């Protein structure tokens, strides 16, 4: 089940909101503490990338972030309506040295390279509507999750 779905106007200030929401939802879902920093950076990069692309190509359209807590673990899906991702950056260092200069926006290809370098399970799908970046993390078995009993009594 999608536990949280967030639609954000494409403004840099909302990237932080995306980080807050996704990290809070992941903690709730039981993601182990050691993975929270990785998750925070990954969602930050994916959301900055999408926000940057919309700001240029689809300023009136919100960026979507969906957090799902399912059989395959925790998944975080960031959907943008921007042009397809460029070819995978094979040398992030070079790319940063080239582009890291005076633009205020994130470099979308560098952001994606950081996501794929950081997270083991990442899928990037480009369809006619835009790009969907899906990141997945394993969750502990339900019974071992913090607050499992509370969750049961909530149903």
């Amino acid at each position: 089940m999608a536990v949280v779905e967030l639609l954000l106007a494409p403004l840099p200030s909302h990237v932080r909101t995306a980080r807050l929401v996704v990290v809070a939802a992941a903690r709730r879902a039981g993601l182990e503490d050691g993975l929270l920093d990785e998750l925070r950076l990954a969602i930050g990069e994916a959301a900055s990338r999408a926000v940057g692309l919309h700001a240029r190509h689809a300023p009136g359209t919100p960026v979507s972030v969906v957090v799902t807590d399912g059989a395959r673990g925790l998944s975080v899906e960031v959907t943008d309506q921007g042009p397809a991702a460029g070819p995978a950056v094979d040398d992030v260092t070079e790319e940063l040295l080239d582009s890291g200069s005076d633009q205020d926006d994130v470099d979308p290809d560098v952001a994606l390279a950081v996501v794929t370098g950081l997270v083991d399970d990442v899928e990037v799908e480009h369809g006619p509507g835009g790009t969907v970046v899906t990141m997945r993390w394993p969750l502990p078995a339900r019974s071992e999750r913090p607050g499992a009993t509370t969750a049961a009594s909530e149903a």
Partner: protein
Amino acid sequence: MDLSLSTRTESGPGGDRTVVVVGGEIDVYTAPKLREQLIDLVSSGQYHLVVDMEGVEFLDSTGLGVLVGGLKRVRAHEGSLRLVCTQERILKIFRITGLTKVFPIHSSVEEAVAASD
């Protein structure tokens, strides 16, 4: 949560160093402030910078881009940009992106100020 910036001058064996103390979150929203600060310093002739990242709580690739931009600027004047960082989660992003090979990273401001090229 916000980005905080302050600067001071320290003198080392190689001459004066401008120490920029950064705190909070460096992301696509706050990075422009840091870029402006670095540009201002270089414009006013301060080419040897030490950026103290010990108070940084979050850093993303936009922030890295700004630091790289600063490095290019000081190098254009034969200057230097040294980082101070011992936080594992911040070091990790320098490592992932290969920037540990690009920036001299020190474990204290004293060490960075004392270092020479």
